[in-house]
């Protein structure tokens, strides 16, 4: 860009996918390909239906509000946003405007972008209902009401973001937050995350703190993937820069555009003067209800440590690499597994190696989650302890790992039943070594302490006789001593 800097604000819509039912309806909140299967009369706005607030959705929204360091309201209200569209059965959407206070206002999010710490202020967070989904064909459209009424969290940031990369890093951070809170899968492939992007550019030498210098806000609607957000921002910055250079920027009106994935461009929708008046007013069918401080306390206590904090801790407290820590915190259940194993008294680096190596590749190959994984933290500790005590070798450890999963038995049981105990008893090893020496006089004669390569051969013989159970280090040490004695 050079002469200009961008000011970017995001409106991130994320479905709450983890409630049993929809936000104002008793229909199932569940993603399904079977159109119009999760619906109740209220989802299609048949005459006489009424909304009933799902307390669980409110709880999750309050949890998100706290995680974003927002203020929570004393009373909960919902408002009607009135407009006509075929995906909106009632002709209004139940949502929350900023007056009365929505589920959260004035928060702040700290996240990481390319190793740098960034901050974005949150203007507000509100709980609303999703609309139905439309599919358009050549001469007709279809409506699927499964999505109508699914709880949706809309987060509105201040324009604190300065680049496409930063915007994507923020969204990835938020996805992780929602996943950690257990309120959403935040899967954009399922259409659970959708964004509107506000972009303007300003001359780099002007004061950023003065809103007059911010330029003209362009809202880009319906950006439905993180890649799309990145591309739409890049496109807008390029487009607006060109307008600046052609001296056309100042005559550009504030407007809403739409992201067109296919052409990779934004397309003019409407100007600010044509903005829809949504005629917000408080939904009279939902009495305002008090959010007790006890309930807020209870919710607060249930918030887990988030990925961002865990990663920091793994690096500073356990000395893990940025790379390892990042992998561990990517999914909360993996991170929880790691932490539980460490809490049992294992070395964090060893646990990280096992988790990020053998365990993740096993889970990926079997396409299962760690909650379905047989080898629990207690067994992982057993396995690590067996190796650390030299009862088995590290190489054997990997075999034990595979056998544990194959036979669904604990590492101890596997080692016992498979006869995999290492022979560390020197008297037993002595006998075997004597045997090997007796049987290989030529090799013994050729032994040269300066060039101990032949030792490998002897160890191989020992392993053969013990079927791999000899502790290699002990065996090697004893063998060396015997050979040296013979030479004297």
């Amino acid at each position: 860009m050079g002469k200009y800097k961008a000011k970017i604000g995001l409106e991130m819509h994320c479905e709450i996918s983890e409630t049993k039912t929809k936000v104002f309806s008793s229909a199932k909140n569940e993603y399904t390909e079977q159109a119009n299967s999760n619906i109740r009369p209220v989802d299609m706005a048949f005459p006489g239906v009424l909304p009933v607030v799902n307390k669980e959705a409110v709880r999750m929204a309050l949890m998100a509000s706290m995680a974003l360091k927002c203020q929570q309201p004393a009373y909960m209200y919902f408002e009607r946003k009135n407009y006509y569209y075929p995906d909106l059965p009632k002709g209004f959407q139940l949502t929350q405007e900023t007056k009365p206070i929505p589920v959260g206002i004035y928060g702040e999010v700290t996240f990481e972008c390319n190793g740098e710490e960034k901050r974005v202020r949150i203007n507000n967070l509100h709980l609303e209902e999703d609309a139905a989904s439309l599919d358009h064909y050549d001469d007709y459209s279809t409506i699927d009401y499964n999505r109508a009424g699914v709880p949706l969290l809309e987060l509105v940031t201040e324009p604190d973001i300065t680049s496409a990369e930063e915007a994507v890093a923020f969204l990835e951070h938020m996805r992780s937050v929602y996943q950690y809170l257990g309120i959403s899968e935040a899967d954009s492939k399922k259409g659970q995350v959708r964004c509107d992007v506000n972009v303007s550019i300003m001359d780099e030498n002007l004061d950023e703190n003065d809103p007059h210098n911010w330029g003209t806000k362009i809202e880009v609607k319906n950006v439905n993937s993180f890649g799309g957000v990145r591309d739409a921002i890049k496109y807008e910055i390029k487009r607006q820069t060109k307008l600046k250079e052609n001296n056309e920027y100042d005559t550009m009106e504030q407007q809403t555009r739409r992201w067109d994935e296919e052409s990779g461009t934004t397309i003019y929708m409407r100007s600010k003067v044509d903005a829809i008046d949504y005629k917000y007013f408080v939904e009279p069918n939902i009495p305002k209800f008090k959010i007790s401080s006890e309930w807020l306390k209870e919710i607060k206590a249930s918030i887990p440590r988030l990925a961002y904090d865990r990663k920091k801790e793994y690096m500073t407290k356990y000395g893990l690499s940025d790379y390892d820590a990042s992998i561990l915190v990517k999914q909360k259940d993996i991170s929880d597994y790691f932490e539980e194993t460490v809490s049992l008294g294992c070395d964090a680096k060893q646990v990280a190696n096992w988790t990020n190596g053998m365990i993740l590749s096993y889970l990926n190959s079997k396409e299962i989650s760690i909650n379905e994984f047989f080898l629990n933290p207690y067994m992982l500790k057993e396995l690590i302890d067996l190796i650390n005590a030299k009862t088995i070798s590290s190489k054997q450890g990997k075999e034990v790992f595979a056998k544990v999963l194959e036979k669904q038995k604990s590492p101890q049981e596997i080692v016992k039943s498979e006869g995999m105990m290492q022979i560390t008893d020197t008297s037993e090893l002595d006998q075997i070594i004597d045997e090997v020496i007796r049987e290989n006089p030529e090799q013994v004669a050729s032994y040269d302490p300066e060039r101990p390569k032949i030792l490998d051969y002897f160890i191989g013989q020992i392993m053969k006789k013990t079927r791999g159970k000899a502790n290699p280090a002990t065996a090697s040490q004893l063998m060396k001593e015997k050979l040296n004695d013979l030479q004297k």
Partner: protein
Amino acid sequence: MKYMNKSIEELHEMLVKKEVTSAELIKESLEMSHKIQDECNAFVTILDDAQPVEVTDNLLSGIPCGLKDNYSTKDILSTGSSNTLKDYVPFFDATAVSKLKAAGAVFVNKTVMDEFGMGGTGTTGHTGTVLNPWDKTRMTAGSSAGSAAAVAAGVYPYATGSDTGDSIRKPAAYCGIVGYKPTYGMISRYGLFPFASSLDHLGVMTRNVKDAAIVVDAMKGIDKNDMTSWDSSHIHLRESLDGKVKGKKLCYVKEIVDLSNYENPSAELKEHIANFMKTVELCKSLGIEVEEVSVDKTLLNASPAVYVVISCAEATSNMSNLTGIIFGPRGQGDNYIEMMKDHRTKGFSPLIKRRFVIGSYVLQSQNQERYFRNAQRVRRLLVDAWKDLFKKYDGVILPVGSGPAKHLDGSKDILDKDTAVLEEHLQIGNFGGFPSITIPNGFISNLPVGVNITGNCYDDANVLNIAYALEEAMDYKNQIAKEV
């Protein structure tokens, strides 16, 4: 007519003693339905295949009744008297309908109303004007027009109604019957086609107070489908009617009742007020203290405007689901906007469209503070004024309207000046969600007029009991309309 002029308790006793069967009651009620349909145009649907129901301990079991056509009834046409729903057959019952069904009530017809309840004349339903059974040149008032006409004419002992401004209590007065809307949320609104959600009440029209208590006992109850409903299981309306009213206190509002408020009052208005004062004296003779109180006239005069602003605003939003896309006749057009426009242009009557325009206007962001929010503030002031009265009084007693039923041909009425508050004060009962009951209290020009008692929220039993005692002291209980 052998049975349908009787009260619910009388009919129940006859059913229990097997002096009559449910089938015989239904037969007579259906015959009356067809007769009153011909005479008054009171019904959207007559359910000729209505089936008798087993008579149980429940007072309503086996007895015919009517439902206003904005009650969602499973497998039965429910139009709200609107062309937008002219063929709409719901697949679910309103909660109140389920409760009546469970009590053993037999539905014999769906009654005509002003379109979606948005009118007070009974003239705007899509099936045409409802005529007053006392005088076919006069209106029933509305919006529960068909229910009022049918109960007054003796089609059955009761029909349900709904009341957003006075839609039960005004037609009750014009038709000489009892109209009762209980406290907001006592009866679930689930399945009632909404007009203005914060003002909408379900209720009932009967020919005596006890019947009203019996029916609402059956309809009420907390409902998981309506967050504004509340648990009234401790309230037993019928059982609490003992007629003991000595020491009760009522008040009437000088700024509404005093003739000096009206410039050159007509003879009818004078008579109406005089008749009301007679009722007041009657109350006193029953041992009820009645006092005149004063309420700020400016505040009272604001009531009709507050009602228009709030009810139209909520209505325009509530009826945005009527697009012809999911239900109702599909509109014609090249795109969804044209289709919706066509559906709504053809479907709604001009009166409703006018109210939608008002509703949209007052909600627009540049107007909302001046109109909608101010209306909500004044609503609160009016409710507070009435709540203040309830600190001292069991209820407010006031005349209903400015006289008897108006002519359908408006040019025949002498309109008194400045009677808006007299015509519209019942709205305050909706603003506050107060229990409110109208009972007949006399005749003017051979036509019935009514008196209203409104009490504090949750005090339904007390309000009904006062009405019950007063009704007993007058001659209009159980009256059937006679053509004048």
